[in-house]
Structure formats: C-alpha cells, structure tokens
C-alpha cells in the first residue's frame, strides 16, 4: 500500500485528508471520533473574537439537493462560526493536540478588520499547540453582513491587509481560505500571497438558495417564515472548486502557492482530482456530514490503491494534471475526434440520438435497414461528446481521433479566421 503520509507547510498528517472547518470540527468530542476513524487532520471550526458567544438561528440551518432516492447531491447551510466560548475551544484544541500528536490540528479564525484583534487572539490560539491557522475569508452568510468572512475575501486589499496582520501576530503557518463568490479567484489568491500567506485553501461555500416550499410559496427552508441565502457545498460544487484550484496552480505568479483543496470531496476519486490539479491535500466536510466519519476508510484506501496501480508516490500525483489545463485559445483546432457507438454494449435507449437530433448536430441514426439502431454519421459528428455524456452505459460510446497526428497543431491564436492572430 502506498504511503499516504502527508506534509503540508511542514505540518505532518498520516494522510492528506483533513476535516474542513465546519460543524464536524466544532468540539473535541467530534474531532476525537474523527481521529479514531482515521482522519489525517482537522481544521477546527472557526473561532471568533473573545466576548459574548455567537448566536445561531434555532430554525433549520441545513438543507439539501436530493436525488430521487434521497442521495445528497448538494448541501446548504446558514450556520455561523463557533457559538461556544473561546476559552472552551482553546482548552479542547490544546487537549486534542496533546492526545493526537501525529494528526494535523489547524485552527480556523475570523476576526474584525482591525489589527489589534488579530494581535490579541492569534497568540492565544498558537499557544494551544495548534499546527497552523486558517483565515476564514470565505463564509458567505451572516458573518459577511458584519464585515467578515466573504466580505473580506471579496476585496483583495482586505485579504492582503488581514493576512499581513496575521503573519505578524503568529509564527505558525497561515492558510488563507478563499471564497468562490468572486469573478476570478486569481486576485484574491495573489492578495493572500502578497500578504505573506503560506498557503491558500479553497473553496468556501457558494451563495445559494436551495428551492422554494411548494406549499407556502416561500423560500425553503425558513426561520419563522423568512429565509436567507446560505453557503452551497457538496458534490455539486466540485467542478467549480477544481477550476479555481487549477487556475491558481497553472498561473505562473501563484503556481508556487501551496493549495489545500476543498469542495465536494466524497470519494477517493474526488481527492485524486484535487491533488492532480494542484492541491497538496484536501479538506472534507459535506461527505462526513452526510455519511459520518467512516468514509475516511474509502478515501484513504482508495487513494492508496490508486497510487499503487499508477506506481506513483503521493507527492508525484500533486499537480500532475496541471500542465494539461490551458486557455481555450491554445486548443488545437486541427485535432478531430468523432464518437463511436459500441453496438455490443448499446442497449438501444436512443438517448444519444434524440439529444443529438434535438439539441446538437443530427449525427446519430435511429433506424438502420429498418432496425432500431443508433450509429454515428461521421460526416455530421463534430465530436462534441454530448452522446458520451448522456449514454447510460459506461464506455458504450467513446471518442476516437480521426485527424492525422502528423498534421501541425492549429490553435485559435494562429487560426486564419482570427483577426488578432499572431503573424510573423
């Protein structure tokens, strides 16, 4: 079995799976259970300023996007940062780190935009023996209305300023957690880097309203009849997160910035996605909140097995796929693929035909020689991959290259139809 031992900013953990700062890491009881189950680390649920405790709603905090068999596809929450006294959290963090010296214990923190607050609180946290700090610049609900969380993460100057304050107040590594509720992830990432962040973690949750209540025609869920947007997470947000991770990893200026990947990691393949696209470890919340801590078994075992099969070390996987990510304008327009339907695997549902017929290029038959038969009409197929995407049978429809490898690549940058093309 491949060794999953992970080192992130010098923080060691037996595997690269940390629990994200969220309800599962709110107190020692939960974190103990997580570490007993085998989690490599935990980012403690966000601590705030010392003072009167945070007050949460006592109506619903969570809601889910379900499949018909009630599988949770997406998840939404309006919970705030920890509502327990600061000292209670600090005492428990100290104890947990003492009890579990081989696990990563990072503490999430959210403070007002004044330097004194950072100077006062960060040493208190560092004193617990915690391995690192994660600055919560991402929480999109509640706290953002008070000028914290995403309200900071959406303004690069604030990110840089707060990161600088944190760096000067603490000696342990600083991870800046980014919000996806921005037009581009690069300015916030660059700001964190400029402020001295040791790493970034992303994504935090996405602004979201789950649905309405079809009986009352009010948004769902509500607290006493009124609702507010929450933060969206779970499997449904993974593609958004992967893009943002890859953007940071492939941009030269930020490419050296270590990334902790977050967003919809549910099984080991999701972790492989994040790692290959540039994350050095991953954080998980929703999957644990949906299934419990036991999912760490498949996450760790699956990743280890995968590495064995690929003959890779964990470090070698990190960033492996980044060079394959580029801008559209660099894609080779001379390269041609077409779909091929394996008639032995085809179950004749006809979905490929009808979607191609109705919404694409009319490139798949429904009848051949009087028989129900679905075949690609090569002359019409543009290789769009829609049929592959909708086919219910794995590997029944595959894309095959038909262009000649010897033909020179022709990206849009050089294309004759491009008025802005580069000319010698």
């Amino acid at each position, binding site marked *: 079995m491949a060794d999953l031992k992970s080192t992130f900013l010098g923080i060691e953990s037996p595997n690269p799976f940390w629990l994200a700062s969220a309800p599962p890491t709110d107190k020692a009881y939960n974190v103990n259970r997580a570490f007993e189950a085998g989690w490599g680390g935990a980012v403690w649920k966000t601590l705030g300023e010392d003072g009167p405790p945070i007050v949460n709603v006592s109506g619903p905090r969570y809601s889910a996007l379900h*499949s*018909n*068999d*009630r599988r949770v596809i997406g998840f939404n929450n309006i919970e705030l940062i920890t509502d327990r006294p600061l000292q209670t959290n600090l005492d428990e963090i100290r104890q947990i780190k003492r009890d579990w010296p081989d696990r990563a214990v990072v503490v999430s923190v959210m403070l007002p935009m004044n330097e004194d607050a950072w100077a006062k609180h960060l040493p208190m946290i560092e004193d617990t023996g915690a391995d690192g700090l994660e600055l919560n610049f991402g929480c999109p609900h509640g706290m953002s209305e008070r000028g914290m969380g995403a309200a900071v993460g959406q303004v690069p100057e604030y990110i840089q300023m707060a990161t600088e304050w944190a760096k000067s107040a603490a000696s342990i590594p600083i991870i800046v957690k980014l919000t996806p509720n921005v037009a581009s992830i690069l300015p916030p990432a660059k700001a964190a880097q400029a402020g001295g962040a040791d790493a970034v973690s992303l994504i935090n949750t996405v602004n979201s309203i789950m649905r309405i209540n079809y009986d009352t025609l009010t948004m769902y869920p509500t607290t006493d009849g009124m609702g507010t947007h929450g933060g969206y997470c779970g499997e449904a947000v993974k593609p958004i997160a992967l893009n943002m991770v890859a953007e940071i990893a492939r941009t030269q200026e930020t490419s050296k910035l270590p990334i902790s990947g977050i967003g919809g990691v549910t099984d080991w393949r999701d972790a492989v996605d994040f790692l290959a696209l540039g994350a050095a470890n991953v954080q998980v919340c929703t999957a644990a909140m949906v299934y419990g801590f036991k999912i760490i078994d498949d996450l760790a075992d699956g990743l280890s097995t995968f590495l064995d099969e690929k003959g890779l070390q964990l470090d070698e996987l990190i960033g492996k796929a980044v060079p394959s990510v580029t801008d559209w304008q660099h894609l080779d327009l001379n390269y041609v693929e077409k779909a091929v339907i394996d008639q032995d695997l085809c*179950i*004749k*549902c*006809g*979905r490929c*035909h*009808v979607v191609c017929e109705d919404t694409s290029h009319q490139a798949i038959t*429904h009848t051949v020689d009087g028989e*129900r038969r679905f075949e690609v009409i090569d002359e019409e197929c543009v290789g769009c991959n829609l049929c592959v995407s909708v086919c*219910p*049978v794995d590997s029944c429809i595959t894309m095959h290259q038909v262009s000649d490898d010897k033909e020179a690549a022709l990206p849009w940058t050089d294309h004759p139809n491009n008025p802005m093309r580069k000319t010698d």
Partner: protein
Amino acid sequence: MADQPDIRSRRLEQDEIAANFSDLHPPLSRSEALIEADRCYFCFDAPCTEACPTGIDIPVFIQKIRSNNIRGSARTILSDNIMGGMCARVCPTEVLCEEACVRNTHEEKPVEIGLLQRYATDPVIDARMQLFSRAEPTGKRVAVVGGGPAGLSCAHRLAALGHDVVIFDRDEKIGGLNEYGIAAYKTVDDFAQTEAEYILAIGGIEVRNNCALGTDVSLTELQSDYDAVFLGIGLGRSNDLGVDGEDKDGVVNATDYIAELRQAGDLGELPVGRTVVVIGGGMTAIDIAVQSRRLGAEHVHMVYRRGPENMSASTFEQALAQTSGVTIHHRAPPKRILGDEYVTGVEFETDDGKFVLYADVVFKAIGQHLNGIEGPATENGRIVIDGWHRTSLDKVWAGGDCVIDGDDLTVTAVQHGKLAAIDIDRHLGEQ
C-alpha cells in the same frame, strides 16, 4: 378412488384465505416509486410504449412520477388507456412493456412499469378525481353492448367526445371480465367496480344492467334506435373438451367458478375439491388452478395438451402456478372423463401411453367462443372487423375478445374500444 367426491368449504382458516387472496403485487410506497422511476432512461421512441397495445407514453408518465406530478402522470396514462388502473394490475407486463424495457439488456431487470402505473393512477381513482371533461354535446347517441373493458373504454371516449352513450350489459354488475373473470388477488378491494364508477363519472353514459343482446334487446333494434352501435360482447361460452363423460357432475367451466368466486362475500364458503384437475394452458387455467390451491385444494393438476412453449399463459403466470403448488403436466390431451354420475377422474393420452388423474372436481379452461350472434359476419367464431373496428353491418363496430384479432387481454380490449370510438366519432361527424 373415493366413492363420494371430497368437496367442502372452509378447507383453510379465514386468515389463511385472506392472506392467499391479498394483493398479488402490493403497491409501491412513495420511496419505492421514486427510486424505481429514477431507473427509467426516458428512451427515445420508447420500446415500452411501442409494446403497449394502448400506446401509453410510458417515459413521460414515469418522468411525471419523478417530479411528483402524480395527477399529470395519471392523465398521461388514462388519456391513452382509461383502464390504466386495471391494466397496471392485470397486464402481463413481462411480455409487453417490461419485456421491451432496455434495462433488460443492461441488467436483466426492467423498470417496474406496471407497478409505477398503479402508483400514478391509484390516488387519482381513489380520490375520484376527474381528469377529462366532455366536449360540447353532439346530440348523437351510441349503443354500447357489453360493459367490459372494450365497452367501457369505447363509452368513455365517446362520452368525452360529446356523444351520449347507453351501455347494455347482460350482468348484474358492470365490468365484464374485470368484475367476473380476473383472478381475485389481482384486483382486490372491489377495484373493478371502483374503476368502472370512475369511468362512468365522466357523465353522459347510461348503464342498463341485466340486459342481454338477443334476449332483452336486439341488434336491429339498436341499429335503428341509435346513431351507432359498438359490440364489446366478449366470448360468452366456454369451449367443450369434446370427450366422453364431459356431462358428468363435477365437470365445471372454469369461468363459471371464477365468476362465483369473484362475487362471493365469503371465500371460505366456496365449495373446494380436495383434488382438482384443470384442463387448459391459458390464463384462465392458471387462474382457476392457483385460486383452487389458495382456497385449500390439496392437489391441483393443470394439464395442457401441448408443451410449455405453446402455453398462452406467460412464463410469469406459469411460475406463479408452480410456486402456488400447482403441478403442471404437458403434452397430455384428455381422452375421457371417468366416473358414473359424478366425475372421479380424467384419463389422458400421451405419446408414452395413457394415465389417469383422479379428481373431485374437473375444470375446463380451454378457451371460450362467441355466444352466437345474428348479423355481423364472423370467421372462426369471431366477428370480422376492419382496421377501424367496423363490422360487416352498417353503423356497427366491434372490439375486445369477440373480434377476430382479440387476444384475450384487457389492454387490447381497451384499445379496441378506444379506436372504435374514434372512428365512430369521425363517422358521426361526417353525417
């Protein structure tokens, strides 16, 4: 050989009988239905729809279950098949829609279309929710003879199109084979009447019970009194075996006993033979054999003259008989009925010689034939029709089991009634 036949009631305790005659396929729960609906691939030109004699748009009704649009789902079903509720219970789906399901190719387990159809239609019928309204009155009157699936389907469609309909039914209750013929465990809780009432509730349909064609009303009378006539009279007579001893006491038409069973207030009171021999290989044979076992018959033999591949009962039905404890014998035509006044057994003749099965009761289930009708041309004992169900007589249409391509299925009868109604409407509109 017993001197006296061993026939008596109450062979089983009341609760055993109740369990034996409970719903053969219990309805799906909401969770089961949603999960099953998710298995539908929403196929293009769906093979299941192609395989449905009434052409129900199955992917669409399942999609509507998935989106919790149950009323819309029921409307999709019932607009093509007003007896979608009964068909969900009695259709041999394993040789129709579910056989065509592409999931068979994928994983050898079709979507449970029949059960989903029931899931969508039950709440609407239970709530007596009318999904269809009548068109403007046309002033035309149509006589429908026979209140079975073909007749009710025809009457409903005609009423919806604005015509007034009178159904002439020979029985006490409307419903035909749905009421008197289908195995009890396939249509529990008096569903046949519930559904018939639901169909009639569209309005514009008058029902005259105990009114048989030929005795109480004549076809020529109907032809002159009504703008059109639809014959959905089924096959009223059971076929004879044509062997010696057939007239002995204890040799019974299966359909007669099933009708009695369906109307019994207390199934435990029905007389049941200890050893029962059923002759035939179709659905009726299966139904009488299984119901006999479930009433407490100790030994039930079902004897068919040809091989299993020739049986008109589906493989599911054959398996149902076997798991119910029925012994099926193949390739054994009956030679003669044994006994004096009362039957004592049946002698069969096979390629390997003769054998005798002793019996307290013998059921004949080798098909039915048309209860002689004056007027329309017939062929092989069934009424000849064209593609739009017109008979050889002016203004007379026919459908269901009584016509030449009737295949004894409820769903086919429903389609016949529907097609005839569409053509009758077209015909009346041209007048």
